[in-house]
């Protein structure tokens, strides 16, 4: 039996979800010089997904994003570790920083540091973990868990 969906939650979700994702990406990039960062950004994105989970259960979360949770986890860890290895292979200190400055035509100049790429890894790891938690929690939040039989 599918649990009934809440109209208010659904409507709010439609309004909030995309905005929250945009905010999370903003936080991810703002983190270099201002409050924010990969962890915080990932948590905000995780919060948005949590809202999805509350509204429609696991199916809806799965439908929102391509791939499975551990793909995000793996990719995130790879990006973060890759940044550490990148500097090592070049003979530098582990995790030292390099900044790339590029001209993006219309938008203007943009600066990308390796620290930001590292943060992208952290962001992905947090999102992956949140998704894994939902997988662990089960199909729908309204299903209440029951202790196993004890044969007493």
């Amino acid at each position, binding site marked *: 039996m599918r649990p009934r969906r809440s109209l208010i939650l659904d409507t709010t979700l439609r309004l909030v979800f995309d905005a929250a994702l945009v905010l999370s990406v903003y936080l991810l990039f703002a983190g270099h*010089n*201002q409050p924010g960062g990969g*962890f915080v950004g990932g948590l905000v994105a995780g919060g948005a997904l949590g809202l999805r989970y509350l509204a429609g259960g696991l199916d809806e979360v799965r439908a929102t994003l391509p791939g499975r949770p551990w793909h995000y986890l793996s990719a995130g860890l790879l990006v973060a570790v890759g940044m550490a290895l990148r500097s090592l292979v070049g003979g530098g200190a582990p995790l030292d920083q390099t900044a790339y400055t590029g001209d993006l035509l219309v938008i203007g100049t943009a600066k990308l540091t390796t620290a930001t790429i590292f943060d992208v890894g952290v962001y992905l790891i947090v999102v992956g973990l949140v998704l894994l938690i939902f997988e*662990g929690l089960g199909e729908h939040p309204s299903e209440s*868990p029951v*202790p*196993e039989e*004890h044969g007493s």
Partner: protein
Amino acid sequence: MSVLMAVTAGVLCATGTYLVLGRQLSRVIIGIAMLGHGVNVLLVLSGGDGGDPVLVGEDVTDFADPLPQALVLTAIVITFGVISFLLALAYRSWVVTADDEVEDDVEDRRIAREAEHLLDDRGDEGAER
């Protein structure tokens, strides 16, 4: 200000310790969390007196020590992770035992039982006399 922080840390740690000594898992977990917060406050306190934020403005002279804040942030994230693991473990414990109590230590019970037997034997001897 410092005294207030120190007292806060003390109260948090004391309450946490009290709760950890209980037999209910849920209380133990809350206790661990409070203990963690108390220690985090202590860590913030170790940075000395407060000051201006570090990153704002160019000509800040009296800024706060940023290192303890970074340390506390790390510590908070770690505590958060471990507490959630503990909660999952407590939930698992509830699923397999349908109970929230910390179980008796098997070894402890055995020793206690043997001690009781020993006492009983002595009691019998006394009765015979």
